[in-house]
């Protein structure tokens, strides 16, 4: 198992390096002047040729690309992720503040999604074709169709505007005031977790139904084990593998959704930062966010693969 983990870890690191190369060269090779990495389009119009040349030289934009890459990577590893061309603030600093927020929001949503989704999916599978199963299935099917902003709108309207129970914007760190923080996060998490809950429920149900028809589950029944043990120890463990893969893929949806949620609820997370970067064509911003997201995705895939190995020991041999 350990060799498996180490191997996957090395693959992941290689993957991340590959991503940095792709990110770097894509940014540089785009149509347009690389000077756009430093100044906005508007600023460029009021600068003289000499000023542009000066900037270019100052920042090493006239060096060979490969050299630029290593300088850039060096900066990244040292913690210098460049500066935003609109706000002129260092990006690394902002990222350090924003990443934990988005991470907290995303992880809470994902974990709630996984736990609730799997629980609901298991119930649905075990009580197949009962009214409960039918209700759950329909709800799950609907749940994957609801746009994140619609839940937000409903939630804000019902709980914020009409009932006034929950705050509709702002973020309080859980480290400062846990209760207030939780109150402010109920709506955002509700929005983000809906899709994962529904998706996990569907996948778990399908998976469980398949597993419960397997011979080894029949063997488990024949041993006189209780329903709980058969379902949890024998069936679920085998059924969870595809659910985990799907959860890994959910991460993407959550990251995308968090952009929307952060915008609606004014949460100062990474998603909002990325959005501003995209809308303002602030390349260093975009670069920073893309890098972080890529690392997050690779990490998530790594964790999913490792968990796969735990669920299905046959995989470990490869």
């Amino acid at each position, binding site marked *: 198992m350990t060799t498996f983990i180490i191997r996957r870890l090395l693959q992941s690191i290689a993957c991340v390096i590959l991503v940095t190369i792709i990110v770097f060269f894509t940014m540089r090779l785009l149509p347009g002047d690389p000077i756009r990495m430093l100044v906005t389009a508007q600023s460029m119009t009021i600068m003289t040729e000499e000023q542009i040349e000066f900037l270019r030289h100052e920042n090493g934009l006239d060096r060979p690309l490969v050299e630029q890459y290593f300088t850039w990577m060096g900066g990244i590893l040292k913690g210098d992720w460049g500066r935003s061309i609109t706000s002129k603030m260092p990006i690394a600093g902002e990222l350090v503040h924003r990443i934990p927020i988005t991470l907290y929001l995303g992880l809470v949503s994902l974990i709630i999604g996984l736990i609730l989704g799997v629980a609901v999916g298991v119930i649905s599978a075990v009580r197949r074709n009962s009214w409960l199963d039918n209700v759950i299935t329909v709800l799950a099917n*609907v749940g994957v169709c609801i*746009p994140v902003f619609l839940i937000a709108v409903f939630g804000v309207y019902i709980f914020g505007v009409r009932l006034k129970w929950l705050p509709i914007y702002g973020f309080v760190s859980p480290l400062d005031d846990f209760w207030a923080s939780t109150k402010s996060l109920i709506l955002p998490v509700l929005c983000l977790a809906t899709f994962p809950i529904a998706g996990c429920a569907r996948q778990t149900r399908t998976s469980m139904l398949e597993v419960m028809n397997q011979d080894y589950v029949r063997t488990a029944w024949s041993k006189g084990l209780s329903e709980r043990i058969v379902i949890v120890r024998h069936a679920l463990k085998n059924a969870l593998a595809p659910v985990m893969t799907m959860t890994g893929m959910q991460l993407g949806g959550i990251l995308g959704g968090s952009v929307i949620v952060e915008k609606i609820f004014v949460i100062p997370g990474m998603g909002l930062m990325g959005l501003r970067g995209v809308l303002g064509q602030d390349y260093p911003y975009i670069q920073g966010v893309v890098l972080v997201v890529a690392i997050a995705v690779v990490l998530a895939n790594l964790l999913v693969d490792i968990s796969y190995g735990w669920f299905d020991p046959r995989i470990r041999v490869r």
Partner: protein
Amino acid sequence: MPATSVTSEKAVTNVSKRRTGEFRRIVRVLLSRKLVVFGLVIIFLLLVAVIFAPVLTPYDPYKTSLRETLQQPSWSHLLGTDNLGRDLLTRLLYGARISLLIGLVVVVAAAAVGTLLGAIAGYYERWLGSLIMRVMDAVMSIPMILLALIIAALLGGGMANVMIALAVALTPAYARLMHGQVLTVKQNDYILAERAIGSRSIHIMLRHLLPNCLPQILVVMAMMLGGAILAEAGLSFLGIGITPPTPAWGSMVNEGMQYLETNPLMCFAPGIAVMLVVFAFNMVGDGLRDALDPRLRGTI
């Protein structure tokens, strides 16, 4: 001579009988599930809205009217008006065009490019094929909305770029499907027989592979249509892609957020519209998949 013509005639009628019989069976299975019927009804309504929008409503979705802003639902404005005095229902109907258009273009483009790439990858298995599939895997691992955001950032906003971005995100699924199909079918004897008589590769691919894979491609297309529409709604909500004043459902919700307290319909109507349409396509896609090949359950 007469004997052969009779047998070949019979063969043709048998084949076409089989095709219609198959078609009828598919329709029967589809209609047997209430949710699928529900989905088909919604899609039908959607098509009506798309095609007959100008007929169904006397209003212009772009024309502002400062006297009639933020009105509540009434007989003249069934869903009320928005902050610029435009009839909400009209904008909803015209928005259907945008959603469906983008959804269809994205899915069809992704299907076309994806199946082509997948077929090539399957055919030239060794290095070209494996290279293509690796790239597909990489693209597939990037979350869809983020991919769209990145491409939008790099190429600028605008509808075309958003469509390109979404299509790129959806392409790997088709490539994978086609690739798998080609690899399986390649083993089949009748392919070997064709090659033995000297048929060219393209000929083989078009005449044999494509018809076999068509049902599955259609199922994937139906199931992805919902996802594409959902993604586009999210993007236009964020202000990327379709921007006001064009009536895209996502951006309509965005505009309406400020008026949630007084005119909640501005947000609810387009949002629910997105949900219904996506649900409809998902249900029909599920139904198609079960009708065409229930074994696909769990893989697609």
